[in-house]
């Protein structure tokens, strides 16, 4: 028997996971006036620099820790935000396997993953709602992170609530971060083509409607 390999009719190009030099980013009109430096503006990424950073938390079962990515010296603050308006930090986040769930809030009091019915709000103290909107370690593995965050100067605190499920006495949650520091240069008069090619970065409120 003879079998000929079929010539592929098209190929799939997987784009890079991170922003690269020369890429364009556009901050949507959903950004508030407090972020006037970015709102409705197009930028070119001039320089990138990747900074890996592993964090770990040993948490007893049934307890949680709010990991705050904003800058400061508070116990829970990780100070991952940029300090300059011409910096954009693109952060990949992955977990090593463990017996825990993560919930996401921005700002600290508002979940990113609530549903529309009033009671459908993530709650780690509730046996059912602690799984609502929860991201598990397998959803964003350490070696192939799927969670991506974009931080600009003075962004409201992004909170990652790590809750350790029953079944262990303690769990060590290892969080692998890769901070892709991007130096931005504004394009004053963007062309239509540049606007179409740009990656749109939306304000967090646009995730909730």
């Amino acid at each position: 028997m003879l079998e000929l390999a079929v010539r592929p009719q098209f190929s799939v190009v997987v784009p890079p996971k991170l922003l690269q030099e020369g890429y364009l980013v556009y901050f949507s009109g959903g950004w508030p006036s407090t972020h006037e430096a970015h709102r409705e503006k197009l930028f070119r990424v001039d320089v990138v620099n990747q900074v890996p950073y592993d964090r770990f938390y040993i948490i007893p079962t049934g307890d949680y820790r709010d990991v705050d990515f904003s800058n400061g010296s508070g116990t829970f603050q990780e100070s991952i935000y940029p300090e300059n308006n011409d910096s954009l930090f693109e952060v990949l986040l992955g977990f090593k396997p463990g017996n825990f769930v993560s919930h996401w809030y921005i700002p600290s009091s508002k979940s990113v993953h609530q549903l529309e019915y009033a009671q459908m709000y993530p709650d780690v103290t509730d046996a059912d709602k602690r799984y609502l909107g929860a991201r598990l370690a397998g959803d964003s593995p350490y070696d192939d992170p799927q969670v991506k965050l974009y931080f600009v100067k003075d962004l409201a605190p992004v909170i990652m609530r790590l809750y350790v499920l029953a079944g262990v006495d303690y769990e060590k949650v290892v969080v692998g971060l890769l901070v892709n520091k991007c130096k931005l240069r504004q394009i004053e008069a963007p062309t239509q083509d540049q606007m179409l090619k740009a990656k749109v970065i939306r304000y967090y409120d646009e995730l909730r409607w």
Partner: protein
Amino acid sequence: MPSKVVTANTTAQEVAAERSDAVAIPTSLVVDNDQGAADRIISIQDVFTPSVTNGVSSPSETTVDRFRATAPQGFVTTLTEDDLKGVKCLGALKVIASAVDASCYITAGYRHE
């Protein structure tokens, strides 16, 4: 994979220090109690200080016994990775014995994951 030899002691002997980005997995435990004075109970301890959480603002150092086995006098007891399956140390991996015995040697192998 690294390993370390310690002698039986009632004070926990450190085999692998805590590493922030990984847990320590014991892969083998060989207790040479051939020349030991008596049967010895050997335990693997996990020593760590939990993180500050929303529930506990000032956590203190914690020791959790993760494994325990008896090593009979006059024998060399060998435990493989399969025997130790499921044992995981979040912090420092330490070994402690039921009595001080300079003739009872414990070889612990481990890896970080």
